[in-house]
């Protein structure tokens, strides 16, 4: 009996995924932890001319030139400040390294499949195409971002499209 329980538990755990939870203003977002390369402070960003405003510029990450995207500007948040708490999450998407500016990183959460609800059709600023779902955790709601889709989308203008 206990053995079958263990097996079921292990199977369930296998489907559990870990997410890095970060905040943009008062909202809580999450990204798949496997996409995250590292977390660092916001500093020394070189502006790039004629780029969309949410692309803050590029920075030097141990010899690699990495573009920095401010999701707060992209998501039209009211308050955009750069301070000691401002954090850059460096993510790996499609063989590229991109840094995203967020207000803070809170913790790493494990969510089981039944805790992840499908994202409703909403939002003009954040299309539900870029969401993997909503995570519910007691009284908290995490917006789970599909970071691959978001960062490689045309509207982020981070990637040269073949069509050009």
């Amino acid at each position, binding site marked *: 009996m206990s053995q079958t329980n263990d097996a079921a538990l292990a199977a369930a755990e296998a489907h559990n995924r870990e997410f890095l939870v970060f905040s943009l203003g008062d909202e809580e977002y999450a990204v798949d932890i496997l996409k995250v390369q590292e977390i660092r402070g916001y500093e*020394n960003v*070189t*502006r*790039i*001319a*004629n*780029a969309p405003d949410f692309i803050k*510029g*590029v*920075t*030097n990450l*141990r*010899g*690699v*030139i*990495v*573009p920095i995207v401010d999701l707060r500007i992209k998501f039209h948040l009211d308050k955009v400040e750069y301070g000691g708490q401002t954090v850059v999450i460096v993510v790996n998407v499609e063989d*590229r*390294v*991109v840094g995203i500016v967020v207000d803070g990183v809170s913790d790493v959460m494990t969510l089981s499949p039944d805790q992840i609800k499908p994202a409703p059709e909403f939002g003009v600023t954040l299309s539900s195409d870029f969401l993997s779902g909503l995570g519910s955790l007691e009284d908290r709601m995490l917006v789970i971002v599909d970071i691959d889709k978001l960062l490689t989308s045309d509207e982020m*203008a*981070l*990637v*040269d499209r073949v069509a*050009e």
Partner: protein
Amino acid sequence: MDITDFYDTFFEEAEELLADMERYLLELDVDAPDTEQLNAIFRAAHSIKGGAGTFGFDVLQRTTHLFENLLDHTRKGELKLRRDIVDIFLETKDMLSDQLDAYRNSDEPDQEAFERICETLQRLALEEIGQDLEGGSTSVAAPKPQAKPEPEPKPEPVASDEPDIEADSNHCIVTLLNVGEKDRQLLVEELGQLGEVITHGGDEACYEVTLASSVGNDDIEAVMCFIVDADQVQIRSAGGVSASPADAPEPEKKAPAQQQPTAQPTPPEAPSPKPAAAKSAGEAKPAGDAKSAKAKSKAKGGGESTSIRVSVDKVDQIINLVGELIITQSMLDQTVSEMEGVADSALLNGMSLLQRNARDLQESVMSIRMIPMDFVFSRFPRVVRETAGKLGKEIELVTEGESTELDKSLTERIIDPLTHLVRNSLDHGIEPPDVREAAGKPRTGKLILSAKHQGGNIIIEVIDDGAGLNRDRLLAKARENGLPVSDTMSDDEVWQLIFAPGFSTAKEVTDVSGRGVGMDVVKRNIQGMGGHVLIMSTPGEGTTIRIVLPLTLAILDGMSIKVGNEMFILPLSAVLESLQPAKEDLYAMAGDDVVLKVRDEYLPVVAVHEALDVPNAKTTLTETIAVIVQGEGRRYALLVDDLVGQQQVVVKNLETNYRKVPGVSAATILGDGSVALILDITGLHRLSRAKKEKRRPERGLQTLEVLTENALEN
């Protein structure tokens, strides 16, 4: 382990052998061929045949077989070499390359081509020496039913030191030194295919296989060399007769094991148990024995121990890391210099040592990517020979500075433009022999390819002693093509006309060149590599085309400039001069366009802060500094706030993680760890034009994005 694991080794080795073969063929003096060279060519064909047989590449094996027999006659002096025979040999070599490629791609080689080349070789043999290469029994076209390593009927059993081994099935003992278990099994299997393995046994240090086989000792060695090193194998006849006339020191069974249980097996004294080398030399000229053996072992040793194949990615990674190290070092340096009152001499010494070592390290690492120009030049004897043949001209090719080194990525990209220039020189530059004679020049034209370093650049020249460029004809042709020209143009400007698209002064279009496609492409390619082309020409004496290229694309000599609070880098090669613009030299044109007069020349002014939206920049024109730069043949005056200094920067690609940015060619990391953008001069000009257009009211609807997009495409 599967035998296919060794395919790659075979392909690589065969490719090298073919390259050697071509080189020797081209070097051959037809009237008095060097026996050493003939032997080398023969050996190359022979080794490929051996490998091809082992791996079951039937067509390749049979082609090399015919070829080898013919070569054998040649080196014995039975076949008198002529130029056209060498041409056939070269053609055969190409065919072998094609076949090799086909096998590499797991295809079957072109059967028709195979039959054709076999026929050619057969005919050559019949006509020249009256012998059928295959012994007359089988027709060439019909594929032989029996499979691989066929005992090859030697065309003529030569009186050699091993008369019986080849003729009858004979016993020989193969001794393997320091060969691991796996390889040993494989080798025994291999030997089993060549004949009958009678006994085998021993340990890793010394393993003996007795083999009954009709295959020659050198063939056995050739087969095994694809698996182990030549000096790990010793073959002798079972009868106690040494296969090598050089009287190789018979390996005493236990001796190597005792002396050097782990070390590489360096056979005592001369590494002469090389039946292949010894035998071939023995046939050709017994006296040259030792020399030949030495030559071969040297060639082998040189290829294997002095270089390694490393993927370019790995090298680039090292270069990146070293770049990082340099940056960290200069950051540290800055920190230390800012520390007040800490005059610790040990620390300062350490810092300067670190700096020196880091620079040295960077230099050595960069040199890994550098390969000698020989890599490029070595293909030109063939090009020149063929082109000259087609054109009926007599050309002597001289190459200089083959050891000059250049970044690998550049060497690969320079080949096509250079080939084009060489063909052009041969076709248009050097006159036909009769014309040359009439002009009092030697019948044979001379083409010089040279490479040398000058400053941070490499200079590659194509020099011919032909007729030189014809100024009048160039001008006439330019008018015909509707190009804006005048009779007062300087020679330099006239010569540059040949780089205009669709421009050709050849009186007739030839097979080789003259279609007017190409010279503009040559120029574009070279500019794409960050270089430029110069032409010098004297009528009746010849033309020199000079290509100036940077040594590497990974490092750039830059000038750092400041605009507002931002730092940018300009490629130093583009900077001509800088000056403070005086009010009276600035002229407004058609609204907001401004030109700057510099020594009777009006240059378009590009304000960097405008093009790149830099805040807090100086806007009063006379307070700024004008940097006169050159891009794609045009000059601009860039307005910047300040010149900071010159420095070497490591070029970093922006597109790796981001995208192409208009007006910017790449990025780099400065000493303080921050990123600076390297400006693209023509891109900047387009950008500033696009911005100005946007500001005009009638164009107000067009968005900047569209304009930048257009600017990018142009």
